[in-house]
């Protein structure tokens, strides 16, 4: 199992998924944003950071990087793609996932651990039982997920909402549990097929026990097991 982690100009979280994947016994290597060959990779990670300085909108320029056309084809063939933080923003800008990420409601950059509830979804990247609460850090300024009412209905109906921000006990607060104001507390979504997954939290930062938490491990092991089964 070999993960490819795309480095865009301005990415700054590309080391972490490489470290996480290798720690879990997988191969992982960088993919340059100018590359157009993804052969040899089993899964693609679009990492966090500030691709192209976040200019125009977060992810708006990275979407046109040469590598992205290949990432789209990789996903269309069923290849697993995960976009973390800025990677999620890029997936939305590239229309590989619906909706958009707005500025956090409170206008503050949020950098702390949050509780996330795993929802019943089609996501191939996560096999945790629905209702499971994981603690994963967020670190973003534009994580306020938004989409129109029809899209939200479709996301809920198709099992495309993968993770919701929640309280420590897994419940949702009446006023919403999303620290960034995200619609319906949405922290992560997938496409209908479940192979493309975007999320604002950083599971790659909580894989190595030296970081204190290991709740992020499940985000790497499920896809590896699935790929091993498919052969």
């Amino acid at each position, binding site marked *: 199992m070999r993960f490819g982690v795309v480095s865009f100009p301005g990415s700054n979280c590309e080391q972490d998924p490489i470290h996480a994947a290798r720690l879990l016994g997988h191969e992982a290597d960088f993919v340059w944003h100018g590359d157009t060959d993804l052969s040899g990779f089993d899964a693609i990670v679009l990492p966090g950071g500030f691709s192209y300085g976040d200019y125009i*909108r977060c992810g*708006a320029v990275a979407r*046109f990087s040469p590598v992205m056309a290949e990432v789209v084809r990789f996903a269309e063939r069923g290849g697993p793609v995960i976009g973390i933080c800025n990677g999620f923003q890029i997936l939305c800008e590239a229309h590989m996932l619906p909706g958009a990420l*707005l500025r*956090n409601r409170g206008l503050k950059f949020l950098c702390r651990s949050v509780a996330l509830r795993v929802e019943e979804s089609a996501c191939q990247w996560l096999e945790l039982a629905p209702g499971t609460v994981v603690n994963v850090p967020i670190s973003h300024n534009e994580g*306020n997920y*938004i989409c129109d009412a029809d899209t939200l209905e479709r996301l809920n109906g198709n099992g495309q909402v993968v993770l919701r921000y929640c309280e420590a006990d897994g419940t949702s607060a009446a006023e919403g549990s999303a620290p960034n104001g995200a619609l319906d507390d949405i922290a992560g979504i997938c496409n209908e097929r479940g192979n493309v997954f975007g999320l604002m939290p950083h599971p790659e930062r909580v894989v190595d026990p030296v970081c204190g938490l290991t709740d992020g491990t499940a985000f790497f092991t499920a896809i590896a097991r699935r790929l091993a089964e498919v052969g």
Partner: protein
Amino acid sequence: MARFQIFVTYKKGIFDPPGATAERALQSIGYGEVSSVKIGKYIQLEVADGTPESRVREMCDKLLANPVIEDYRIETVEGA
């Protein structure tokens, strides 16, 4: 050379945190008559003579604005 001005704003119903903050700030420093502030982007574009507005529209749809959350208005700058 032709010039265009592009105004990008959030679609109706999309929360605009910087606008809402500016609105509250203006009210709190004594401008109680303020009922709404929306903050958007203003883009100046210079293109080759004869470039049709449809091309500029394309640029907006592809890159300069995100149709999921934003509207835009294009104005031609006369006498450029």
